[in-house]
């Protein structure tokens, strides 16, 4: 299974997502990257990310994204 870090690196290979930076404020992820990321996370972890959770703060760091994955419901 891919990791969140692996998926992020596929979407934006030019950035190092292990660095302690704000992915949104630093321009490492734009709104289209977030859409691609949501789709990949849902497919990889068999989850359904709620539309109201698709806000910048939930994608600002590796920790925030991993928390989002953990609390998202499993696909029926």
């Amino acid at each position: 299974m891919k990791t969140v870090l692996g998926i992020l690196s596929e979407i934006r290979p030019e950035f190092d997502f292990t660095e302690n930076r704000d992915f949104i404020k630093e321009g490492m992820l734009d709104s289209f990257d977030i859409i691609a990321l949501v789709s990949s996370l849902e497919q990889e972890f068999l989850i359904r990310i709620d539309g109201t959770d698709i806000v910048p703060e939930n994608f600002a760091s590796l920790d925030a994204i991993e928390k989002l994955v953990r609390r998202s419901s499993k696909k029926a």
Partner: protein
Amino acid sequence: MNLLYHGRRITGVLTVVPQKVSNFDDEAVNYSFPIEKTLRLKSLMGFKEHRIVDDGTCVSDLCVYGLQYLFDQGLVLPQDIDALVLVTQSPDYFMPPTSNVIQGRLGLKEDMICLDVNQGCAAFEVGLFIAFSLLDQESIHKVAMLNAEVLSRKVSKQDRNSFPLIGDAASITLVEKDFDQSPIYANIMMDGSKREALMIPAGGFRLPCSQDTAIPHDDGTGNLRSLENLRMNGQDVFNFVMEKVPPMISSLLDQSGKRLDDVNYFLFHQPNKFMLEKLAEKLGVSYKKMPSNIVERFGNSSGVTIPTNICYNIGERVLNEEFIVCFAGFGSGLTWSSILMKIGNMKFCKMIEF
């Protein structure tokens, strides 16, 4: 705000789309992003093809073409139209009203009312509310409610946020009195404090067009647009829709006493496929009941996506059957609105090309 109407019926819908098809694959080279990244979004967002008018084509051209088609086919008589309500954000002129232009070009009678209304993605709902209210008058029996946009002419071709999804189209929805009809439940909300989420900054009296306003600028994410182009903050719009639309639909169902399962179709405005599918998931509605195929085939034509949705997805069936449908529009303003009503046994419901 909750609204309730009695004795009103949609008797026909005609959608007019331009013949010209623009394909996303051909446009992708215009965007200053890696081609792989752009193509990855194709299926997620519904970037496929969209209908675009030629330069010089205006809203009145599409509406006159559609109305003339209805007259030629004998589907409505010119003298029977007592009101033209045009809801658009791309009028032919500031002055005169484009509805008057349409009236004049078609030689319609003087004894009628023509109204232009400025609304965007909720234009279908707002137009219906006005049509329903006009029909309170004894002298008004038939309202032609027109939704029309040629906003592709105001979108930068180098703006990946907006251009792949923009579509041009017009629709004519005939609304009449019918006191055997079920009540029509509706609601509408507005938040002008977030008006800049969707905006064309220059071209009005606040910021007239000039050499400066025509200069394209990078928005910081690689999209090029000028102040005369449509600007959309996609993230803000997405968050607004996810936050406001589900409670609006719940409230509408409560008001009507209906359950989610009682509704045959959720015919919503279609800004992009991803947003609609997330909305369907949040509402607990199957993708089949909430079609999201208009934006990838015709583009987002603002208030015209709902009539296009009706014609394309259930146009044949709605001639002989009846359905309980929920319409919802949400966007510029910001405005969000929904309607629960029965539609069916229409005299016509089809699409034609301009």
